């Protein structure tokens, strides 16, 4: 990334190849819409190019990426507040469970679908922290950097989020 900063903009291609799926996954969990998530991926990479001088080289590239991603996401949600967009994640949750693959164990499949549904129904804060820790496999210290908070606070929030997930899941199951 420091090389991108130095002006070698082509390096951004390598970073895109390495990280765009992860970033897409994060945005998809937060928005529940693939098309909008793709647009926001482009948006995040555009900001990386434009603000490449703000990357200090301290800390990880990923931390910086999610930092920008959260800003882009917040902008998007603010702009689309009057749209029906805020229900997208919930909509997605309702459609889950359809389209199961026949080759997979049905019961296990249903469990996954219901848990996905539960995840989609969590508060954005709790969903975000679980996505970062479980799907993006980030260390608490990195998550703390992304969220501008302390490691201790992250720990507490992960714990709380898992509890909310459990309650929601049990409600859906029954």
């Amino acid at each position, binding site marked *: 990334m420091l090389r991108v900063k130095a*002006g070698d*903009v*082509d390096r*951004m*291609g390598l970073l*895109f190849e390495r990280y*765009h*799926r992860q970033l*897409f*996954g994060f945005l*998809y*969990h937060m928005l529940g819409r*693939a098309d909008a*998530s*793709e647009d926001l*991926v*482009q948006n995040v*990479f*555009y900001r990386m*190019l*434009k603000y490449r001088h703000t990357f200090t080289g301290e800390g990880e590239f990923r931390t910086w990426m999610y930092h920008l991603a959260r800003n882009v996401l917040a902008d998007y949600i603010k702009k689309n507040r009057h749209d029906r967009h805020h229900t997208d994640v919930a909509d997605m949750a309702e459609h889950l469970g359809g389209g199961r693959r026949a080759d997979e164990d049905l019961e*296990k499949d249903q*469990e*996954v679908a219901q*848990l*996905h549904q539960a*995840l989609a129904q969590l508060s954005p804060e709790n969903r975000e922290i*679980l996505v970062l*820790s*479980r*799907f993006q*496999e980030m*260390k*608490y210290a990195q998550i703390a950097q992304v969220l501008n908070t302390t490691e201790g606070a992250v*720990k507490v929030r*992960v*714990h709380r989020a*898992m509890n909310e*997930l*459990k309650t929601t*899941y049990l409600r859906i199951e029954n």
Partner: protein
Amino acid sequence: MNCERTKEQLVDYLGSQLSASEQAELTAHLAECADCREELQAVESMWQTLGKVRVPEPSAHIRPDFYAMLATFKESVDTTPDYTLKGLWQWWLNLDIPRPILRAVYSLCLLGVGLIGGYWFSNSRTTGAADQQQIAQLATQVGNMRQMMMLALIENPSASERLRAVSYTKQLDEPTTKVVDALLSTLDNDPNVNVRLATLEALAPLAQDPAVRQGLVHSLARQESPLVQTALADVMVQLQERRSVKPLRELLKQENLDESVKSKIEQTIQTLSTGRPAAPSTPPRNDQTNLTSPAQRAAVATV
């Protein structure tokens, strides 16, 4: 260590977030507490299931969209020139003829001198086979050099240099995947219409390669210039590429589509759907396209 604290740490444990000593303490407690082990099992089951939640793959557009954005960004950076000494130095450094190419050109010259010299000396002797071998080697090197030149020049900010890069590909016996990829990405993303048209002309004869065919079909959705749209439609008819019907129909939905392009595309869809060849005289062949000459099209494109 007590049970309450253990239960608080189970998720951290599953996410490999604990330090070595914390983990040792936790496993020690788990070894002697059935209650906590049971809790671990419950949390672990949810944690594992959560890990199986899948996200869809991003669509095929995400990559070309990104590279187009990157190219546009680079262009905007390039068009704000920096005339200070440092800027000039930077420009000189960025003038991309990579060192390996300069070296290759240099060694090729040396080899040339060596060959001529060798020829002079060996004229009296009978060493035809050795010479043949050397000449074959030289030909390979020239081929490699053209490819390197092409790959270096196609990134050049100047459109005429990029046109030169595209023209190099016609002299390549067998373009490598790298060259084909570079051409396809140029066709999709180059900001200059003339470069895109020349690239299409260079790609059309390579369409026996399935990757090229697919790239051409996919490119339909990426083109906005009426000239390129029309030329691509022509190529699709030449190749009898039925897979292009769907993207062509998509293209028809575009709002500001040029009227002439619209009728051209409708005609193309018609031809492809009925399976009648476009040109009644000759059946389409891979090594033939009826594109007009680059010069003609360049003239149109600059109008």
